[in-house]
């Protein structure tokens, strides 16, 4: 926890409290932000530096079965980017899918102190928690995949909504997840059972089930809100990556009907119809998506920006990964999880001269620049799908530095720029807005009341940057990083190792529901019902985030 600490003379950016660069002290005690500390408390003078809450990543892929396949799969991507062992810290490897230790240390070294793994099948929860345990410094949790769950489909198909709600609560609780996640709802049945086909619209029939994506998504949004979850539901829409998918995305957003719903990596879902002959040359749909989000306070999103260079497509959207494999050739991983999910992995490089890649890059920037409420259109690259989290500082510079953005725009495929609205955007993000989209906003959307701000009672996760006209440089290497009140990085060097907490929910559920679930296990799972729930040994350091209304 560290001794009491007073950080003096810093320019503080704490948007949650309307503090916008005011020079004031920040006091820390017992791992929390406090009003004051005794005069003899340790002082750090950060005159002229920028003080912000630790960064919060609302959507990334850093741990679990799919991520580990992505690691094993790509030795060639690790060997040229290594993390050296120090007396204090473990070694590791980087590339687009870093080892667990490299992941934790690199997030911390960038001033991020919380990250959410965005797609884990319940059957992979135990594995994911083991990896997160080996991911140092940061606090972390995961979203559990429920949008292709066959028992939930059965209950929904038979109109057993109360049992559906109980079962969803059960699944969140026994997997120690943070939030429910939907990925290309309905697609897994077509992928696994109907010769690798895919969902094309909200009203497609889901394989042998009398269900459609429309019905499934609406049910999850409604039920997740009833459960009073801190982050009700995290949605990866159908038709990701497909030309003209903006229509599907808007239709899906409308299904929320005023209820809270978060839409993931909307850049990948903002493609307009093709102009002219080539089906492969979509236009930008950023305007429509941004306009809809701006006008609907119940809708929140992260951008999933694309950054040029090496990435790894790593997704529960198996048909999408196969499509990219067919386009690019090269190696491909598919991994089906019984009754729960699919998964696909493909190494991928975004090239600035390629029309589609340049358009994706432009759409990501457009979405940020068109957003009127930074609290609801937050920062992400869907690491590593749109680009590595280590490219965040460059993305921040693209948002804050119009001149730099112009230079970069000259490098990319101009035809693609013509089909986007990026050239019209003169906006530059302020430090306060950056603090919102990278910390305060994600924390608020996740319902993490003790994160993303520097008010009394907040977790003492603090990042201190040296001002620099080059914002990429500034945000790449903070001078100090404090986690739970402990000075982890000082003068850009690790001073201590730290094990962060697992953040998860534990919604109450009626034990009777197990009478419904257990028989399904006997019939269709290959692991015993009694061995399925994850016990507390897998979360030695954890924090349960309370849920509101619990099912009656």
């Amino acid at each position, binding site marked *: 926890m560290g001794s009491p600490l007073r950080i003096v003379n810093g320019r503080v950016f704490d948007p949650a409290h309307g503090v916008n660069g005011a020079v004031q002290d920040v006091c820390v005690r017992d791992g929390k932000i406090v009003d004051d500390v005794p005069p003899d408390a340790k002082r750090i003078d950060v005159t002229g530096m920028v003080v912000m809450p630790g960064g919060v990543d609302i959507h990334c892929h850093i741990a679990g079965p799919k991520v580990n396949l992505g690691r094993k*799969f*790509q*030795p*060639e*991507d690790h*060997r040229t980017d290594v993390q050296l062992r120090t007396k204090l810290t473990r070694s590791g490897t980087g590339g687009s899918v870093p080892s667990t230790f490299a992941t934790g240390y690199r997030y911390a070294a960038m001033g991020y102190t919380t990250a959410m793994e965005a797609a884990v099948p319940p059957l992979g929860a135990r594995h994911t928690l083991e990896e997160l345990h080996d991911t140092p410094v940061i606090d972390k949790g995961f979203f559990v995949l429920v949008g292709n769950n066959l028992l939930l489909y059965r209950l929904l198909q038979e109109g057993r909504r109360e049992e559906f709600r109980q079962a969803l609560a059960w699944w969140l609780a026994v997997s120690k997840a943070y939030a429910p996640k939907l990925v290309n709802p309905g697609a897994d049945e077509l992928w696994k059972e109907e010769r690798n086909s895919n969902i094309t619209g909200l009203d497609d029939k889901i394989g042998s089930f009398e269900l459609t994506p429309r019905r499934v998504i609406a049910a999850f949004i409604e039920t997740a809100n009833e459960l009073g979850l801190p982050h009700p539901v995290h949605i990866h829409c159908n038709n990701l990556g497909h030309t003209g998918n903006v229509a599907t995305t808007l239709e899906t957003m409308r299904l929320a009907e005023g209820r809270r719903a978060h839409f993931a990596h909307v850049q990948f879902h903002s493609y307009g119809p093709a102009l002219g002959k080539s089906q492969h040359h979509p236009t930008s749909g950023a305007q429509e998506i941004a306009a809809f989000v701006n006008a609907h306070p119940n809708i929140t999103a992260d951008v999933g920006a694309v950054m040029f260079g090496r990435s790894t497509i790593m997704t529960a959207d198996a048909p999408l990964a196969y499509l990219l494999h067919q386009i690019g050739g*090269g190696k491909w991983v598919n991994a089906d999880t019984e009754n729960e999910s699919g998964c696909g992995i493909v190494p991928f490089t975004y090239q600035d001269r390629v029309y589609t890649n340049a358009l994706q890059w432009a759409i990501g920037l457009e979405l940020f620049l068109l957003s009127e409420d930074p609290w609801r259109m937050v920062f992400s690259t869907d690491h590593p799908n749109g680009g590595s989290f280590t490219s965040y500082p460059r993305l921040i510079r693209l948002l804050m530095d119009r001149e730099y953005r112009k230079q970069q725009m000259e490098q990319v495929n101009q035809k693609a720029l013509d089909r986007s609205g990026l050239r019209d955007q003169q906006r530059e993000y302020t430090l306060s807005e950056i603090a919102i989209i990278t910390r305060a906003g994600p924390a608020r959307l996740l319902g993490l009341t003790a994160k993303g701000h520097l008010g009394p009672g907040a977790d003492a996760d603090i990042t201190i940057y040296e001002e620099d006209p080059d914002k990429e440089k500034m945000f790449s290497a903070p001078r100090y990083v404090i986690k739970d009140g402990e000075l982890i990085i000082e003068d850009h060097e690790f001073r201590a190792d730290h094990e962060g907490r697992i953040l998860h929910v534990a919604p109450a559920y009626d034990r009777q529901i197990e009478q419904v679930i257990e028989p399904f296990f006997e019939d269709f799972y290959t692991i015993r019902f009694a061995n399925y729930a994850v016990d507390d040994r897998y979360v030695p350091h954890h924090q349960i985030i309370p849920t509101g209304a619990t099912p009656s």
Partner: protein
Amino acid sequence: MSLDFTLRTTPTVPLEAEVLSPTRLSGLSAREAAKLSVVYGNQRADLGDFFEVGGGTADGELHLTGDLARVKRIGAGMAEGRIVVHGSVGMHLGANMTGGEIVVEGNAGDWVGPEMAGGRIVVKGDAGHLVGGAPRGSAIGMRGGEIIVLGNAGNEVGNGMRRGLIAIGGETGDFTGVNALAGTIVVLGRLGWRAGAGLRRGSIVSMHPAELLPTFSYDCTYAPLFLVLYLRHLRQLGLAISDPHLQGPYQRWSGDGVELNRGEILLLKAPAPES
């Protein structure tokens, strides 16, 4: 005059000495060179702990003497100059090399010229596995330059090769030219099994009959001109190229059928037995 390194203490565990490269040593005196770091097992050591360093300021030529079979990464990343090894060397000789020349009088370990992009390596003895081969997980092997082995070589010669020339005076192990995209591999001795598996483009040449994969198909018998030029060049480099090799003709087999089918294996047609 050249810098001379004579092995004084034989390493008992692997010694990684990428500093043994004209590029790294240029302008250094013998004394300065002896102070350079090498990795001995899991600890740092000085080049001078293992080598007697003589000669004058480097003129771009190094002479290494002794049994260097446990010394890895000699000439790694070298861009110019010359290394002559009077003895045998360990793994990763000339890794990522872009220019210059390495001559080994003895044998070389596995991974000769991994990810090599230019320059020339000549091994007068035998070479190990994966000569000019891609590292695991990568589809990209040798991208340019020449590797000449007068003796035998092991498996996966030219795995994932993209450009350049590999010539083996003796025999090769299995999967010669596996997954190659381009480039030329000439083998004077016999090819091991499954030569050209996954071959996209490029040429694999052998002076002996070989049993090929079911996905290679016979095209014709002819005397390709490009080969004559290559063989003349190789003869100058000390490879035992005979007149029948130059005359041909060669049977051309195209493959790999599971890939683009645009690669070729050329087998010297044995002269009809006199009756």
